[in-house]
């Protein structure tokens, strides 16, 4: 568990390079006089270690990584590195299908992967917006004609918070499901609209998102999706880290039940 934040504003001198590492997974930035260079070394398997910020002197094995060049007339010295939630909704599934009985309420915890972003200051231009581990594509919807493209993999959905492993490259979303319908609600998969959520960090530097409440009422197939305004209560002494990718004025959205649960 990383106790030191890997995000924030970083100052780069010319020719200085800095890298963010989880095991072998490495993202490196280097400032030159009139260009920025980035190296993105991906690995196949997810690593649960801490994210280490380092200042290597040589490029070394990273030469095999995906290389990017960003040209500027004169580079500025400040870069803001922030975690950001995924650019599509994420589907998570509990270990076994859950049945929420009629008239009941439950709180689930879903962990989803975060993206690494680097913005040049003061113009806030994006240098990088990459996932630590890219989840697989997936489809979520009642049929192959109606639905949306989302991500699956590298997720977990648990009823007890203790059962969710806290990782520095994942954020936890608490989801409260209220089933006021007279029939039970079967949850095999949950579609978490992470693009609408804010990102917070707690005192342990664990990432959290705003909570979601799903209200399912009697006599309707639609559900109300309430987006909380604050950090969840489980995140102690939390601080806002980053806003949502898609800004939404409304805090209550109406969705069809099939677009959230399957």
């Amino acid at each position, binding site marked *: 568990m990383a106790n030191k934040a890997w995000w924030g504003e970083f100052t780069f001198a010319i020719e200085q390079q800095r890298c963010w590492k989880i095991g072998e997974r490495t993202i490196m930035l280097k400032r030159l006089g009139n260009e920025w260079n980035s190296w993105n070394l991906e690995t*196949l398997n997810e690593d649960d270690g801490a994210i280490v910020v380092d200042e290597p002197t040589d490029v070394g094995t990273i030469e095999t990584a995906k290389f990017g060049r960003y040209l500027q007339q004169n580079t500025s010295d400040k870069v803001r590195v922030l975690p950001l939630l995924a650019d599509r909704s994420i*589907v998570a599934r509990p270990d076994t299908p859950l049945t929420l009985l009629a008239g009941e309420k439950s709180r689930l915890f879903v962990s989803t992967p975060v993206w690494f972003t680097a913005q040049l200051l003061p113009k806030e231009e994006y240098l990088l917006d990459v996932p630590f581990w*890219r*989840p*697989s*594509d*997936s*489809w*979520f919807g009642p049929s*192959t*004609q109606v*639905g949306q*493209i989302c991500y*699956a*993999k590298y997720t977990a959905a648990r009823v007890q918070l203790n059962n969710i492993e806290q990782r520095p490259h994942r954020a936890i979303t608490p989801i409260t499901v209220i089933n006021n319908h007279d029939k039970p609600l079967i949850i095999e*998969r949950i579609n978490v609209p992470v693009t609408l959520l804010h990102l917070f960090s707690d005192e342990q530097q664990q990432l959290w998102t705003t909570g979601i409440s799903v209200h399912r009422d009697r006599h309707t197939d639609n559900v109300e999706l309430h987006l909380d305004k604050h950090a969840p209560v489980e995140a102690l002494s939390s601080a806002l880290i980053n806003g949502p990718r898609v800004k939404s004025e409304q805090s209550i959205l109406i969705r069809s039940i099939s677009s959230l649960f399957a």
Partner: protein
Amino acid sequence: MKEFIEFVELLKASHLYALIQAVLLFIVGFIVARLVSGAIVNLVKHKMTVHGQLLLKRSIFYGILVLVSISALDNIGIDLSILLGAAGVFTVALGFASQTSASNLISGLFLMIERPFSITDVIKVNDITGEVISIDLLSVKLRTFDNLFVRIPNESMIKSAVTTLTKYPIRRADLKIGIAYKEDIERVRTILLDIAEKNLICLVEPAPVFILTGFGSSSVDIQFSVWARRENFLTLKNTMYMEIKKTFDQQGIEIPFPHVSLYAGTATSPFPLSSNAENLDKTTLS
């Protein structure tokens, strides 16, 4: 000066003046129709699809043009009610004279109403696959992937089956695989599902489908169906086939090619076959 005024008076009295007026009205109307339709489409450009824009532009353009034409005809003293009466006779004559064009025209209208595809969609008609670049009254124009321009008459579009490849966001790739009879099918199934799981552009849902299609002449035939976003369809097919070949080679799973065994029946023993490279070389040399 006096002569000029007299000339204008004379012109006014003759039919020529009305005719020039009508022609001018038509030309101005044509320009106005173009400008107005273009301007309106520009205004609503961001809210509409390319197809919708084209439809709107044409409706406005032809609407204005018809009104202007009626007004121009009225100007030269042609009574429209007589013209409409003559239209019945005219239609029969036109019908015989331009059967194909009329049929294409009607088919074009139906195509526009039915909208089986829009501009920028990729469609397949008979053996032609390409991107729709325009849907006109007489024909649909396609750009094929080898960058050819194909014009397909609307009539044949209505008559034949048209497949729209870009209708839905996801597509299924059916991979045909053959494995040797000696292989463990259950193991192959696990390997294939594992390859699909590791491929990031292969959709997790709908899940990949493993179908044993039958016992072929030299292999056990398998269809492995995987889903991808339609823009990743070809990449998925390629990467999956490459990954399957690589993994099968690593795991020692044989992908057989057609075998032919010569066999002389049960009563006789099989032909004794042996391969000897040295002997073969000598025979070839002598």
